[in-house]
């Protein structure tokens, strides 16, 4: 495939894809191209978003001639090399306390086994890795974060876990997710946080933005219970600092 690739998504819109697999330049390109489409304010585009390596333009394709929108996209794509774009401005570094394993996160040992490391080594690495929000998706404010070391290039499990709770830290394909809501998932549940991605009714309902960075330091179950009792902000005991 030749990037960028322009494809239809049902009759719901157009997807511009900058790479076939996750990589950082393609992720930056998707974020920058989305910002440029927003600035252009084309009337047929009702909203935009990004996935890991793609920009999505919501367009009613039964009401808009296809060439009209693809011509506009082609012209904008030709204006620069989008993979050279900088990361978004105003980013934040979060440290989110996390209980690894135990019955709160029952798939740590299974994930470690699939990755070929023992559980203690897994916790040592995961609790000190720093990851970036590559995209927000699946549920309100829910971050896809990466990339972890090649050790964690493990597939999703076959079959779905029936439900993981809000704040669950899950892993697959060198990425982490903290879940917004209780949800079924094919990713393995390795840690539990009290961090709320989405805070309906708050002044800032969405805690994270693409480009923010996070670490998940290890704490005990007692410490998590203490945080849950005391921190009602949604931060789940997390600290944060501005990235410059």
């Amino acid at each position: 495939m030749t990037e960028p690739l322009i494809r239809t998504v049902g009759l719901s819109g157009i997807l511009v894809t900058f790479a076939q697999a996750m990589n950082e330049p393609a992720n930056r390109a998707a974020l920058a191209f989305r910002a440029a489409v927003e600035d252009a304010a084309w009337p047929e585009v009702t909203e935009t978003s990004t996935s890991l390596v793609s920009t999505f333009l919501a367009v009613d394709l039964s009401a808009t001639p296809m060439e009209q929108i693809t011509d506009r996209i082609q012209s904008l794509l030709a204006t620069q090399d989008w993979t050279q774009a900088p990361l978004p401005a105003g980013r934040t570094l979060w440290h989110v306390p996390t209980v690894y394993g135990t019955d709160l996160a029952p798939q740590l040992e299974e994930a470690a086994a699939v990755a070929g490391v023992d559980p203690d080594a897994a916790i040592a690495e995961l609790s000190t890795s720093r990851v970036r929000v590559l995209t927000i998706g699946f549920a309100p404010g829910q971050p896809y974060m990466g990339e972890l070391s090649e050790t964690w290039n493990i597939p999703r499990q076959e079959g779905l876990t029936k439900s993981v709770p809000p704040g669950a830290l899950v892993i697959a394909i060198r990425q982490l997710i903290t879940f917004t809501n209780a949800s079924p998932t094919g990713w393995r549940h390795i840690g539990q946080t009290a961090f709320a991605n989405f805070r309906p009714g708050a002044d800032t309902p969405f805690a994270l933005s693409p480009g923010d960075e996070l670490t998940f330091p290890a704490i005990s179950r007692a410490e998590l219970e203490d945080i849950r009792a005391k921190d009602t902000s949604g931060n789940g005991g997390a600290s944060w600092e501005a990235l410059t």
Partner: protein
Amino acid sequence: MSAALDILQGGPSLSIQDMGRRGYRAVGLTEAGAMDPEALHEGAALLHQSPDFAAIEMAGSGGSFRATADIRIALTGATMAATLDGEALTWNASHAMPAGATLTIGGARRGSYGYLHIGGGIATDPVMGSRSSHLRAGVGQTLETGDTLPIGADAHTEVSNGLTPSDRFDGGKVRIVASMQTEAFDQDTRDRFTATTFRRDPRGNRMGVRMDSEGAGFSTGSGLSIVSEIVVAGDIQITGDGAPFVLMCECQTTGGYPRIGTVIPCDLPRIAQAQPGTAITFEFITMAQAIALGQRHAADMAGLRSRVAPLIRDPATIRDLLSYTLISGVISATTNPFEE
């Protein structure tokens, strides 16, 4: 004081729905809104108001309701038994609902999602530009017994009109277009997919509906590690065990499972309304055909109002027939008129 609707007794899954919430896909929130948007158009046509007005979506069964003022209602979507103070009401029709009267709506007899529309619409405060509840996202919630809902000002008075809905309540053939991962499935798998008669699994909700079939699943072989990508309502996702899930209006914004195709928007209510066990088949069509069908559907929705007609009441179904003054000036044969 403006009118309000009291929920005397709520079924298990009532929620306020409109055409959904746009502009939050980038932070992980899909448009959602009504599972059967066509039903919102029908309710709007029956009440002569905007299809953007919010209504009550009733999954599986309704409940009982009472208004604090004289209001107009319309009933659309899945057919449910409805009575007003004990008198049967016609479905797919508009009715006067006097203050204090009790509206009772039972279980779905045909279809899955019924709608109760109010003249003037449900007038709760919009959240992020919409009154619809996105149940999976935690925006809004299911309605409960004891809730009171504000009702907007009604600009019209006409009632007792009916409309014949489109045929979408019994499953059948559903048209799909190729998705970005259709070609990841080999031709044999795609042929088997379109030759299979699926049954709608009982596991289905506003997020997605599982399709059951006999025989092998529909895997791609490499499906478990593809890059997470945008998903839209109608995408048919194949999970690890090979079973297709049709993603519905409250689906996630991105997902990592391959999609074998995408149900065209105007056929998605057919999936929403199919009851568990209903037979469904899928047929690939071209983008050009899908666009033509989308345009025809938009024209049909715009023209619904011209198809609204006064209800013709069958006297045999009017329970309180004797209370109507059908003929005036009748002289009794058994009383002596001279004794009065």
